[in-house]
């Protein structure tokens, strides 16, 4: 009833804006606000080299005299001014946050992508093929679920670190982090996709495709996959927030991003050393950024889940 046909077909963007999803988006202030925050943070991270007043990775630009400058005040020795203050090394907190977000977001997106590709593939196979394939995949998933994700990630991280030669460790740290978080997170994708596949594979359009004689591979890829993507999108969004937090947790525990390439988690770890000595800003601003990022992505995921749920429409 609600979808009145539109004969004029303007641009793709315009159509998306006018679609049910676009309509629901425009009428959800929380979603609009979260998107704004997320976009702002992503743009900040991407453009960090152009926006950041200092480069935190260039030891030559650091002046130890600038250490512990409070936010919004000029340094008492050098007279330099830092928006969000500096840490013990004299690094500009605002700049480290921008660069830290780059690491955090990159690890988050890459880990979710890995988890998604792995989970969707295994979920499709388990749901469509059934039998032993399903039993093996889903039992592995069950076993993995009995361990906390962060523990699994640490385990994978530990193993990976053990087999990389020491000279590459710092360079490889980011990739190991992505692998660890991605592998610890595929299970929920697999479960949801398997469930959706079980429903879809009994629908008549799949029967019709079988009847035509299409191969199981073609049916999974061309018929079922596009129809199970909605829940995957929702989970991917929420997983992104979780992956960013997982990365921060690992880095906070000291097993993640190295101090030479600090992520938000590393910054928080550094900052917490100064929390009780009065230099609160070193901890506060990275933590607040992490909170804003994770919360906005989560709220966006919540909205997406409701908007894509046909029963709530």
């Amino acid at each position, binding site marked *: 009833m609600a*979808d009145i*046909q539109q004969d004029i077909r303007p641009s793709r963007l315009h159509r998306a804006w006018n679609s049910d999803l676009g309509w629901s988006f425009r009428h959800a202030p929380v979603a609009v606000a979260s998107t704004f925050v997320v976009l702002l943070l992503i743009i900040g991270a991407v453009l960090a080299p152009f926006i950041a007043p200092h480069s935190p990775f260039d030891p030559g630009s650091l002046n130890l005299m600038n250490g512990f400058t409070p936010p919004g005040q000029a340094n008492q020795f050098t007279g330099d001014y830092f928006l969000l203050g500096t840490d013990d090394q004299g690094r500009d907190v605002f700049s480290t946050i921008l660069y830290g977000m780059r690491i955090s977001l990159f690890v988050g997106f890459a880990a979710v992508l890995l988890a998604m590709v792995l989970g969707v593939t295994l979920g499709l196979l388990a749901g469509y093929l059934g039998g032993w394939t399903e039993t093996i995949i889903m039992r592995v998933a069950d076993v993995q679920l009995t361990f906390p994700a962060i523990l699994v990630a640490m385990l994978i991280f530990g193993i990976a670190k053990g087999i990389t030669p020491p000279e590459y460790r710092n360079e490889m740290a980011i990739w190991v982090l992505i692998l660890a978080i991605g592998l610890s997170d595929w299970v929920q994708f697999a479960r949801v996709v398997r469930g959706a596949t079980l429903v879809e594979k009994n*629908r*008549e*359009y799949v*029967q*019709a*495709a*079988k*009847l*035509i*004689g*299409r191969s199981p591979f*073609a049916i999974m890829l061309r*018929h079922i996959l*596009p*129809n199970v993507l909605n829940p995957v999108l929702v989970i991917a969004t929420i997983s992104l927030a979780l992956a960013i937090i997982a990365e921060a947790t690992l880095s906070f525990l000291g097993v993640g991003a190295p101090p030479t390439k600090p992520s938000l988690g590393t910054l928080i770890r550094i900052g917490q050393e100064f929390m009780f000595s009065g230099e609160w800003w070193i901890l506060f601003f990275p933590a607040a950024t992490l909170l804003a990022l994770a919360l906005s992505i989560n709220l966006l995921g919540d909205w997406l889940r409701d908007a894509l749920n046909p029963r709530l429409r």
Partner: protein
Amino acid sequence: MSAIIRIEHLTRVFDVSKPWLNRVIERLPKALLTAVSDVSFEIEENSVYALVGESGSGKSTIGKIVVGLVPPSDGHVKIEGVDLATETDRDKVEAVRADIQMIFQDPYASLNPRWRVREVINEPVSAKGGDVTGLAEKLLEQVGLSAKDAAKYPHEFSGGQRQRICIARALASGPKIIVCDEPTSALDVSVQAQVLNLMSDLRKELGLTYLFISHDLTVVQHMADKIGVLYLGRLVEEAPRDRLFDAPKHPYTQMLFAAAPRMDGFGREVEPPKGEIPDAINPPTGCAFHPRCPIAVDRCSKERPEMRKIGDTRVACHLAE
């Protein structure tokens, strides 16, 4: 006229047991559901053969076995002399597969919502690497839609229009036989009339053979040349349409006809049928209908009746004459 489909002693058993571990712990036996039990019939070329029955009668299962979606447990389905389940010659199998298509009950579930109508209709041909230039457009016009509709998505169509799209897809590979599984039971009466008329027209134009599966006696009476009545997976009666409706022989057929609501049945007070369809996992012994049968005798509970030929009618009842 020759038989294009020959079904011989078809049986299909489904294992509906609980998982192995539950069975061991709860000491449950294996639960086997006989959906189709020793069914034999033939469909003549260019005719409409209808299977009627209530839920659990196995009519849809037979349809799925015929098109090859479900393998039989026992017995044979021979289409143009080829048994899809056992034939090893791939070319023969491919040729027969292209000759048989299916139309499903739910027009909302039988079209992939993410595909354009053109892709949906072309799939049977394009998946085999065939030439699909203008195919969807031609078929859409043949089923009473417009060629422009090829670029739309299924959700832009009503139920009746979707069923037309399904028919167009079924016709794409140029089949000789179409299995129709309750093709109009999800549609409104006036739309049902449109779809049934379309199916009749197409049959005449293209010389199609239909295996028409339905629970609706009125639709079957309108469409079919020959009708098989199923009860609990067994064929209980088979007769040409007029013969069946004028003189039903099997007590179940008689009960079904009496129970069907009628447009001229104003304030009709009939004694409704007794009992319900039994559990197919533990069907009654002998004739499956005997617990509800008004004329059952001792023999009916002990001996399963054979199909007997009485005139044009084949009936599985000890007492029918």
